[in-house]
């Protein structure tokens, strides 16, 4: 079970504003999904190593040679707000 306070805590971690209605629905839906997922706690996984990458990759590193980046104007072109050649954001504030 995941309760309302946990939903609000996780939403803050995820930088996601939720409406009252969404908080209730999220608590219900996440609980149902977690309830199903919890079945893996029945498995004996003692000594089993975790897998984060499935296919062996060798020699994936390239030479560390500087390459030209995208031009600044191209990078800034899609930004919602720009000032003095940089991304403009509001004050981190209180």
């Amino acid at each position: 079970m995941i309760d309302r306070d946990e939903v609000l805590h996780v939403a803050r971690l995820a930088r996601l504003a939720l409406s009252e209605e969404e908080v209730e629905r999220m608590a219900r839906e996440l609980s149902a999904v977690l309830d199903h997922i919890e079945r893996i706690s029945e498995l004996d996984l003692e000594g089993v190593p975790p897998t984060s990458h499935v296919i062996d990759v060798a020699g994936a590193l390239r030479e560390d040679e500087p390459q030209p980046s995208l031009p600044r104007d191209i990078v800034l072109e899609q930004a919602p707000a720009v000032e003095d050649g940089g991304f403009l954001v509001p004050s981190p504030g209180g």
Partner: protein
Amino acid sequence: MTDVTSLSAVEAAERVRAGELAPVEVFAAYRDRAAADELNAFLWVADDAGDAADPATSPLGGVPIAAKDLFCTEGVPSQAGSRILEGYRPPYTATVVRRLAEAGAPLLGKTNQDEFAMGSSTENSGYGPTLNPWDRTRVPGGSSGGSAAAVAAGLAPWAIGSDTGGSIRQPAALCGIVGLKPTYGACSRYGMIAFASSLDQAGPLARDVRDAALLFAHMVGRDERDATSLEFPEPVRLPEAERLDGLRLGVPEELSSDEAGIEPGVREAVEASLGLAEELGATVQSIQLPHAPHALSAYYLIAPAEASSNLARYDGVRYGLRVDDYDTLLEMYERTRAAGFGPETKRRIMLGTYALSSGYYDAYYGRAQRVRTKISEDFRAAFEDVDFVVTPTAPTVAFPLGAKTDDPLAMYLSDYCTVPMPLAGIPAISIPNGLSEGLPVGLQLAGPAFSENRLLDAAYALEQAIGFDGSAVRA
């Protein structure tokens, strides 16, 4: 004169290269059909073929591709089906799209998808659902539903999609076409808007197995810009096999059990095809994948966890949406993400953030990664006894629009038979396996890493034996 859209992509490319067909005619025929799309399969359609390679001398002969929205295409909207990226036009092109253009396949258009590839019905698109061309009251599957519907309806000769837990194979099955999820690393992920990086893989959706093979042949290869990409160990061939002599097929008990929710019509279609496989010389045996019933749980921890990290970049700073009403930076982040993401994306971000949060990491994410190891071991053991694993692609045929949108878990269960393979990084193909209640059924074959040539051969032989005809919905 033949209607060029009645030709397979392989046939069209051959005719162009032989000088019997003008590539502009091929492009125009599909462009007209795509522009008249009534299925909401396309989110953007090209005006012209741009500057792709000379069709007459290139292997893909100017036969254009439809690309899932999440493939970045320079100067062309690439929104991953999300409102948070509305109008985003990337300054670069995904490696697989560039490679296909260089091989002579220009971009026809961008196709609809579940937002950030999270979904099994394309109903999670921020731009409205795509309709199934077999029955417009039903879903095309997802997340590559736009690509699948476009190919099935003959609005595109072939298409590319991405598969994280079944997002190529399941819509291919529900739309009656062929979909291949390659070995992890076979195709570069550079320029694919990320969902779950350890699982995401690009692949072809096509009218038949030979078309899928030809497209796949020009997608593969090592890319310096994706450190997880690999050189494909052999050239990808066009399949020609007519027989399956000596081939050992394994049917996993766990993926045919009642828990898998396989509909009777789907089960019967798969059994009929296994009978055809035996007539072609294959042997069929029952096998075990003991951890397969836990694949869905592992998947719905690993994929959302990786997604919650990948989607942190949508913050209203560098591109995409920024809302107007905020005072502080934190409010700007939280409200922008609240306004730009749809319900399923929010759900997965929340699930992933929860699974990675302090105190839960070992119990959820860490445990899921250990289950992943067991799933890989299960497949490795199975492939000592059999060449390929065979299952239904999806437990059901295409379901009605709206049938599962209020029940996330029911929606997730439609991935039951497709999630184990990406967790193990192995390739799997879905081919049309006849109809049940007038709707397409998919047959899935999975093989060891880099077995795509053999997999395509077997799929081709079975395709000929099954004799599926999807031409009715292309009219």
